[in-house]
């Protein structure tokens, strides 16, 4: 385990020998899947905690939050309709406005009551358990979506790497590029800092720090991906960069082409009718 963590740490530092060690590991594809899953689950821990706190909240607390939200919206509506400085008293029919406001207020009050009643309807399982299941489902779904993204993008990059003269077997290539996920562990620090952005004075600074950390993690991720493509396929860095950026460009061009054909077809149909 210590060996594995050491290798992963060295890949983040772009150590050539670490990439070669990883490439020679047995069951590289399975390792890649596990690496993506574990890192994705770790980086979304803060979001999981937040979801858990939201979903297991007692019904009364949810109801009072809904109440507060509707009251704030009503107050904002009142301000917008009557107290805007740019509306002169002559420019608006006060009576009509008040009638409209009354109707809107009644509708919003009924909506508020409705939302509160819905929030109080319980599932057969206790709210704590059903809330935990919801948060767990969302947490695991996010990690599985990361696996989909890794496979889909990896396949497209491998196609372009092959076209550029590189070569690698699909499972080995995917296992190799899975290393890109390691720098995103920094995202956990960013997400944690993001929790404190509502603090006066310190909040904006922490928010900025979280943004900078996220940006560093993103750039680092790209660098590790390029290095992994280069080691896996034998391409030089320039071609590895090209293979990595080619898929979004190709998909964009394909999208444009389909949109163009679509417009031509609409024009033909419009001409006919």
């Amino acid at each position, binding site marked *: 385990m210590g060996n594995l963590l050491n290798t992963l740490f060295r890949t983040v530092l772009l150590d050539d020998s670490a990439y070669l060690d990883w490439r020679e590991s047995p069951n590289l594809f399975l390792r890649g899947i596990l690496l993506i899953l574990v890192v994705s689950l770790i980086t979304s821990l803060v979001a999981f905690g937040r979801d858990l706190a939201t979903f297991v909240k007692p019904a009364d607390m949810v109801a009072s939050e809904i109440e507060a939200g509707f009251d704030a919206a009503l107050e904002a509506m009142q301000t917008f309709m009557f107290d805007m400085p740019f509306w002169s008293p002559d420019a608006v029919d006060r009576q009509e406005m008040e009638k409209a406001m009354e109707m809107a207020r009644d509708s919003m009050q009924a909506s508020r009551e409705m939302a509160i009643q819905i929030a109080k309807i319980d*599932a057969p399982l206790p709210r704590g358990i059903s809330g935990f299941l919801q948060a*767990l489902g969302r947490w695991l779904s996010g990690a599985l979506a990361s696996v989909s993204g890794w496979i889909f993008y990896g396949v497209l990059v491998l196609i372009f790497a092959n076209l550029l003269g590189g070569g690698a077997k699909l499972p080995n290539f995917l296992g190799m590029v899975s290393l890109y996920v390691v720098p995103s562990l920094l995202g956990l620090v960013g997400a944690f800092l993001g929790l404190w952005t509502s603090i006066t004075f310190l909040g904006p600074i922490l928010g900025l720090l979280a943004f900078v950390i996220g940006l560093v993690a993103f750039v680092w991720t790209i660098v590790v991906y390029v290095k992994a493509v280069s080691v896996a396929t034998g391409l030089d860095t320039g071609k590895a960069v090209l293979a990595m950026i080619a898929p979004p460009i190709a998909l964009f061009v394909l999208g444009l082409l389909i949109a163009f054909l679509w417009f031509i077809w609409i024009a033909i149909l419009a001409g006919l009718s």
Partner: protein
Amino acid sequence: MDGIADSLRLGWDALLLKEDAYERMRVAAEPVGKGLVLIIVVGVIIALLGVIGTALEWASTPDLGEIQEVVFRYLTQMPWWQEALRADPAFAQNFQEIWDWNWSIWPTVSGAPSTWGCAAANIIIVPLKLIVYWVLYGILAYIFARWLGGTADFSQTLGVLALAVAPQMLNVLGFLPYLTLGSLVSIWSVLCAYMGLKVAHKLTWGEAIWATLLPFILVLAGVFVVACCGSLALAAAIG
């Protein structure tokens, strides 16, 4: 029982894109029979665990009938409801009909827990769906693979393509409510089909990609042509 365990082991290796698994299936004595066993076993396991998932999802979802009743009750208390009733006395009855119809389809469309009947019927429907898809895709993939210079026969092609059902095993996670797999199963299945066609037909990577994707492209093109002809006919009729 050994046959089932062996099929599942083969499916696991195929899921991990091990060429050896596809090669073993290609040279197997009865690749179609072996593939069929794998598909049925995977389909039944998914459906059985899906029943647990449905039960847990039902138990953790508020009663939709009660929600429907609350929403309707409060809608009738809103000012616009009284205005509409004044304008048209039949409004309440018409609204009720549309309301009931919407609620009969909306929960299913928005992913509400399926009924016990549906979950149980899946024990038959899921394997059946997988088999139909396997055979249809197998026929098209075989034609394109041979056209591109492939060497495997039809039964070998069906055998290796049965291994493309391996990612469906991920659906066993369906016993956890609120978990969505998104496009993971589809993407992974296409990769397994690619590996199968490449190994069985001894194609290059480029040929294998075309053999894998051409069946999808053909179906998409068919849908596109039908849509174009339909819209053309509609435009001509309106014009």
